[in-house]
């Protein structure tokens, strides 16, 4: 278990607490004190019409967070029209049971519960002469409709992606998994943000030890706020210092469902369309949802391509440096002569040239990532013309290095999801190559692979499928065997229930 460093020992929402009193005015004053300075805090006073006109009510909510129609039709209108007895204890119950038209209403005196209800868009009903307040569900903020995620497009896949509200996401999953075994466990994280975290798993398939471990790790997190799934992942994942991610992310409900069926656990984070999937093993980087809907030969080919791309993108510049500065004998004579000719007149040493261009490429990529589309034309002109053609013609860099960096960049784009380790390893290997030639690269690769073998994702070895020496385990890693061969769930990831297909009649 890695130690997670959390900056704040104990964080509390506020020192002020609400102590529910009998008087409505007193209670309201406490709420107003707490929300002082927040103009969206609303208190609507009203009273019952028919009987007990002295019985006053006050509805507290945050403007913009609530659906006004719910407040009007389900709370205020029925209460005003209601016939109510005097007894206040009974009042809260009667209001919940007989008056309010809402799927969720609950009486409470708990300060934190009441406050967070208001904050989350529910409304709180204060009643005169009553110690209890009633929380009524009235969430009504705006959210977007599910649309295909830009970052994870599939050719033959649904055009639906996760959205921000956690329950909508749960609905997107549940719609695809009609089983009561699908469990949803809600937790909150963040003392200030009170972000809802949803742990989704299929009972009987998901590994209980992993689930327990996950819950324990989430419980350990103490932080003021949690806005992004990525930061939660960093807090709870294994090998936190490693560039390799041991928790996966997806924006696609179909991918999440496939993961659930493999026995993985999905963690939804409220307010972000990115969900986490775990345990996440190395081969997952090379898998795409499309692999399972396209022809198995083609999918296997694409996976091999992705893996080759991964190795190319981390080693190509390093190998170039090693070959041209240490092992010129390995370059075919004709090629060496063109490299020599291309380098003629270039002032920088090869290693500086290569590392420099790699940095420039990363700058171009970074600039393009968060750039409005209108500017991308200018970017490509800069990149292609100025850096490519002009630099070569001005003899600032040699054409071969440009080719190598272009190859690196291209293969890097193909393996976008492993970006972080790729950049780190590539740079390290290139420097090692400049220092010890191919032996440097070899030592570097041995180090990296040792590291990859040593990390685990929630107890499951990261490289499990590649290191089992069982050719059968490669059927859904390096290759994608026809669906009817994929009869078992991954070992260790899932629990006792391992069989996915009953028989092979399906073929």
């Amino acid at each position, binding site marked *: *278990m890695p130690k997670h460093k959390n900056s704040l020992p104990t964080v509390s929402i506020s020192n002020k607490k609400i102590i529910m009193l009998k008087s409505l005015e007193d209670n309201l004053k406490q709420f107003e004190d707490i929300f002082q300075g927040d103009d969206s805090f609303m208190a609507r006073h009203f009273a019952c019409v028919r009987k007990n006109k002295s019985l006053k009510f006050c509805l507290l909510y945050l403007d913009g967070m609530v659906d006004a129609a719910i407040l009007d039709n389900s709370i205020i209108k029925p209460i005003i029209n209601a016939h109510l007895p005097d007894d206040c204890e009974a009042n809260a119950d009667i209001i919940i049971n007989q008056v309010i038209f809402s799927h969720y209403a609950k009486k409470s005196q708990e300060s934190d519960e009441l406050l967070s209800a208001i904050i989350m868009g529910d409304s709180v009903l204060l009643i005169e002469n009553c110690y209890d307040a009633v929380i009524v569900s009235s969430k009504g903020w705006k959210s977007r409709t599910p649309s295909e995620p830009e970052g994870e497009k599939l050719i033959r896949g649904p055009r639906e992606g996760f959205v921000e509200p956690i329950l909508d996401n749960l609905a997107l999953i549940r719609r695809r998994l009609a089983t009561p075994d699908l469990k949803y466990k809600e937790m909150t994280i963040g003392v200030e943000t009170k972000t809802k975290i949803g742990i989704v798993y299929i009972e009987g398939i998901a*590994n209980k*030890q*992993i689930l327990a*471990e996950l819950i324990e790790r989430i419980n350990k997190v103490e932080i003021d706020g949690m806005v992004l799934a990525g930061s939660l992942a960093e807090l709870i994942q294994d090998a936190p210092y490693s560039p390799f991610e041991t928790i996966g992310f997806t924006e696609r409900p179909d991918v999440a469902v496939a993961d659930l069926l493999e026995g993985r656990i999905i963690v939804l984070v409220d307010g972000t369309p990115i969900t986490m999937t775990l345990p996440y093993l190395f081969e997952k980087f090379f898998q795409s949802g499309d692999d399972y809907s396209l022809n198995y030969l083609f999918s296997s080919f694409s996976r091999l391509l992705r893996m080759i791309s991964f190795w190319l993108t981390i080693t190509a510049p390093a190998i170039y440096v090693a070959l041209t500065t*240490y*092992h010129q*004998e*390995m370059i*075919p*004579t*004709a090629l060496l002569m063109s490299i020599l000719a291309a380098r003629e007149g270039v002032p920088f040493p090869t290693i500086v040239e290569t590392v420099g261009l790699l940095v420039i490429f990363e700058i171009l990529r970074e600039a393009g990532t968060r750039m409005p589309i209108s500017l991308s034309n200018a970017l490509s002109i800069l990149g292609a013309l100025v850096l490519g053609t002009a630099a070569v013609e001005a003899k600032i860099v040699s054409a071969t290095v440009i080719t190598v960096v272009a190859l690196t960049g291209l293969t890097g784009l193909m393996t976008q999801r492993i970006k972080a380790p790729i950049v780190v390893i590539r740079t390290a290997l290139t420097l090692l190559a400049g220092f*010890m*030639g*191919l*032996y*440097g690269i*070899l*030592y570097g690769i*041995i*180090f990296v*692979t*040792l*590291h990859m*073998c*040593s990390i*685990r994702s*929630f*107890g*499951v*070895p990261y*490289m499990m499928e*590649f*290191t*089992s*020496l*069982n050719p059968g385990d490669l059927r859904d890693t390096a290759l994608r065997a026809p669906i009817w061969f994929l009869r078992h769930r991954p070992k*260790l990831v899932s629990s006792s229930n391992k069989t996915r297909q009953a028989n092979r009649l399906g073929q």
Partner: protein
Amino acid sequence: MQKEIINQKQAIVLMVTFIMGSGTIVGTGDKSGQDIWIALLIAMAGASIIMAVYARIIKLFPGMDLFDLLDKLFGRILGKFIALIFTWYLFHVGLNLIRNTSEFIRIISLDATPQCVIALFTGVLIAYALRCGIEVIGRWVSIFFPVIIVISITLSVIAVDMYDFDRLKPVLYEGLKPVLSDAFGIFAHPFAETVVFLGIAGCFQKQSNPHKIFNIALLIGGLYMLMLAVRTIALMGPVNKSLQMFPPYITARIIKIGDFFQRIELINAVIIVTAVFTKVTVYMFSFAKGMSYLLKIDDYRTLSTPLVFFTAAYSIFLFDNALFMVKWALNVFPYYAIPFEIIIPLLVWIAAEIKARNDKKTTSQNQSTNSSGSNAGMQC
């Protein structure tokens, strides 16, 4: 700390890579010339006997490594003494291997780089590997092993039209004596060196069959060396083989595919460095275990890093030059290794048989608690 476990397949692969280790650097003996394959076969036959002894020791006391066993069999003082001798052997050979690697890299391409730098890098790598533990090495070697095999076989296959098997003739021209001498060398050099695995036998999965591990490893490793030796001779003839400092490496120098792929010996270097790295790591792992036993330290990892760096630093002063290093490896080592590879294991084996028999008589329940199913599953 949960116990580290490597499963049977990983153990086999680890041992095969171990056997490949130095056979690929200095090659096999040079006295028998073209008869080296006979020497190899004889050595394999001999090794299968002594390996059966090693396997039997592991089988008798599964889940225990040599040092625990010494304590149990010979008592504290004698056990410690034998462990001390054995640990010395581990240290000394580990030292040699680190030197071999750095010398190899230095001669074949980094001739201007100070040896200490190469030794330092090798040391860092080994220290990291030991920190990760044997389980990780078991997994790691399962990735690299297929790569090594594929590269070697590819190299052998693409050179197929350059082979001249006539070079293997005449058979036994100089008689059996040089062949036997080489066979002894090969027996001692990679094969019987698997005695080191006694030191890490505690990590073998308890269900695994040590006899199977040793036999399959011997078979694959032996076949691999056979392929390498025959390839070297069929390509270059016995004369070139005995002339070169690192013959298996040099063969790749003349293998070429068309005009484009030539001078591919560096690809061979990948195999060599990986295999030797594995070998050194196993040695150093065993060494660290031995030292932690001698110094009564629970976790060998606390010791591993300083030990590795000490060894790497010391390796620089081991020999004056590479010529002596190769001579030592081929000529002196086999005799030097006899007590460690044959005598100590035999002693341990006899003592173990007696002990096991006594144990069976006295308490039959002991074993049932001892061999409770190991848990290869989750560890967090």
